[in-house]
Structure formats: structure tokens, C-alpha cells
């Protein structure tokens, strides 16, 4: 079997741009997803069932349906009425952030609930408000425990961002598909894409191991 390195070299500049897009969209989505996820996670721990319900439903919807479907709904359903037309970049950020928020919410909830209730009681007994107890006592301890789970979520996000090729967001898979279309070759585009994703996720897991040891 001949393997045409020349077409990979030809596509390298756009693949590199696609890689940057993938990295960018993953970073932005994990950040917005975490912020939104913290709110959702706290909401899901609300004392009253009717207060928990909307958060519960959100999380269930986004965890219970394929990201593939969510991307299509966001791209063709959600964005056009707001933005006026479809836009792959906006879809990329919105769909991945909303999806990641649902998973982050569960990470936050599990992390917060893993902290001994005595910590909260001690904080409250000193006159702290619930918010102060959360901010100074519970979250700093919980976040340490969440690092591995967030690492996993980040890695999954990087890989799942490949589904954005569906709406022609210019990420790695989009350019690989283009390459396949142009040269009618299978191994070169897809193996290259696989290698790029692997390098990304592998470096990421190494980085996360390092962070885990530090915190």
C-alpha cells in the first residue's frame, strides 16, 4: 500500500488551523461549561424539589441525548432566530458549552457533596453565610477532588468537538473530510486526524497528571 505523505503535507497548514480551532473551542467550552455547570450543580442541590426540577431536566436532556442531535438543534433551531442566520463558529461554542455544562454540573455536585457536612457546619457555626461557607470552605476543597473528573471531561470534549464537522465548523475533522473529498483517499486524512487527536488528548492527560500532583 502506498501512503501519500505529499497530500498530508499539502493539507498541513489547514489541518494546523483546524487543530487550533479544536483547541480553542474546547478551551472556551470547558470554561463556559464550568461556569454554567457550577450554577446548574448548585441548582440541582436546591432544598425544594420544584426548584431542582429545571436543573434536573437540563442535565438529563443534555446527558441523555446525543451531542450530534444537540449540534443540529443548536445550529438550525437555536442560532438562526437569534443571530439571523446559521453560523458554525457560534454553534460550536454554544453547543459544546451547553453540553459540557451538563456534565460539569454533575462533577460539581458530586465534588461538593463529597465534602464532609461537618465542614459546612463548622463554617456556619462561626457565623458565615451559606455563600461564604461555599466560597471559603467547601469549593476550595471540592475543586481539588474535581480535577481528575474535569480532566476527563476536557478530553472527551476535545474528541467530541469532531462532531462539529457536521455543520462545517472548520476543525480537524472538517479538513480531513475535505482532504478525503479532494483526493479520494481514506487512510491519509483519517489517520492524520486520529494522530492529531491522539497527540492532543495524550498531552492533555500528561498535563492533567501534572496538575493533579500539584494541587
Amino acid at each position: 500500500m502506498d501512503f501519500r505523505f505529499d497530500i498530508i503535507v499539502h493539507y498541513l497548514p489547514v489541518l494546523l488551523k483546524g487543530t487550533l480551532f479544536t483547541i480553542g473551542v474546547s478551551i472556551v467550552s470547558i470554561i463556559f461549561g464550568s461556569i454554567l455547570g457550577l450554577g446548574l450543580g448548585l441548582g440541582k442541590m436546591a432544598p425544594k424539589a420544584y426548584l431542582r426540577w429545571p436543573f434536573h431536566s437540563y442535565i438529563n436532556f443534555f446527558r441523555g441525548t446525543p451531542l450530534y442531535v444537540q449540534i443540529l438543534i443548536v445550529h438550525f433551531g437555536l442560532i438562526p432566530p437569534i443571530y439571523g442566520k446559521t453560523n458554525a463558529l457560534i454553534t460550536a461554542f454554544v453547543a459544546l458549552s451547553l453540553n459540557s455544562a451538563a456534565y460539569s454540573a454533575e462533577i460539581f455536585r458530586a465534588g461538593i457533596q463529597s465534602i464532609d457536612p461537618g465542614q459546612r457546619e463548622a463554617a456556619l457555626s462561626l457565623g458565615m453565610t451559606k455563600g461564604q461557607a461555599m466560597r471559603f470552605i467547601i469549593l476550595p476543597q471540592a475543586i481539588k477532588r474535581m480535577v481528575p473528573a474535569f480532566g476527563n471531561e476536557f478530553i472527551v470534549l476535545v474528541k467530541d468537538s469532531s462532531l462539529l464537522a457536521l455543520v462545517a465548523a472548520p476543525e480537524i475533522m472538517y479538513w480531513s473530510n475535505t482532504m478525503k473529498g479532494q483526493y479520494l483517499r481514506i487512510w491519509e486524512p483519517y489517520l492524520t486526524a486520529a494522530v492529531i487527536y491522539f497527540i492532543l488528548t495524550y498531552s492533555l492527560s500528561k498535563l492533567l497528571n501534572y496538575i493533579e500532583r500539584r494541587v
Partner: protein
Amino acid sequence: MEPIITVRNLQKSFGAHKVLTDINVDIHSREVVVVIGPSGSGKSTFLRCLNLLEQPQEGEIIIEGVSLLSKDTKINDIRRDVGMVFQQFNLFPHKKVIENIMLAPVQVRKWPEEQARRKALELLQKVGLSEKAEAYPASLSGGQAQRVAIARALAMEPKIMLFDEPTSALDPEMVGEVLAVMKDLAREGMTMVVVTHEMGFAREVGDRVIFMEQGQIVEEGRPEQLFGSPSHERTREFLSKVL
């Protein structure tokens, strides 16, 4: 004189399980009240109601003239003045000893850092742990941790201190150092409510001993009276098991 704590007809249940039935107590300023009783008697729950870590269903708790269960009462304001020491210490493991003590004065009382630090160092000296200021809680023995926890509560300059079995999680050889700190506090005139199994402490330091069983106050009185000639059969039975 007005009692500093008044408890009237306090009722508390967890689901269908009744934990406190009709508790009535007056506690005066500078008084040391020791609550004893078998496990499951509701004594810890009673104590935790006094700063609303447990929400009672019925009754009234009045601390310094303020009704805790009234809708207008900000419980955080009451808790500033009511320190609590827990069986499991509950020190903040991610903060140094000194930071554990300084946190609430700075964040809740809005003291300047310097003032809080001075107070914290002073209290560490008082509990004999000046050299541990920069240590993390994980490096402390149980007795040291509990003394830090006492210092942390005292940093808020509370008017009342609640102790929830403060020595029950300690190795026997460390009980003494914690009780010594508590005795000092009592001598200084701190109002204290202490749930404990340390009958020696109750006898020596308590102004009054309350015996609870099955969510009710069975008997209360001066320690020499309650230990010497208990008037209820259930009190006698309990004391014969623990003394």
C-alpha cells in the same frame, strides 16, 4: 437575672422519629451546664438546636432576648456570638492553623487582618499551641486539633460556647489537655453548654447537670446532687453504668 438562653417546649423529629420532646431549659450567663445521657437520647440534637444547625419543629429558643425561630432573626448574627466545638473537630484542612482561626473574624466580623492575627496568636498561646500557627491541621494530634478548634470558636469572641462531645473522638491520653482548656474557659466565666460522657468533668466543672433520655430531660440539678442522690430510677440506672 434574665437567662442568656431560654428554651421552651422544644420539639424536634426526624421524619416520624421524635428526637426531642418538650424541652424546657434556662441557662444563665457564666453558667456551665453539662448534658449527659445515653447515646440517642437527643442531647447532641438539643445542643445543635441552640445555633440552629438543627431546625426544631416547634417551641421557642431565645438567646439574649432574641427569638431564634422568629422569621426576622438573622441566624448568622446569632451564630457569631455562639461558638461551637464539634466531636470531629471539623478544622478546615486546606487552611493553616492560624488561617483557620483568622478566617471568621476577618470575613464575618470584618476585622483587619492584623487584628485577627494578633487575636489568633493570643488564643494559640492560651491553648498552648503557639508553635503550630503555620502547621496544617493534618499534622496535628487529635488533642491539638480540638484545642485549635476551641481557639477558632473563641476568636469570634462568643458569649456562649457549645461543646458537642468534644473529647469523644480523642485517644484517652489526649482527653486531659482538651478538658484543661475547657476548665480554664469555665473559670474565666464563659457560658458553656457541654454534651459529654466525661463524668469527672461534669462533677468538677459543671454548675448544673442535665440528664436526658429518649428526647426528654429526666432530671437536672447540681452535680453533687445529681451524681450523689439522683431522684429518678432512670438516672440511677444510667449513672450506675457509666460511673
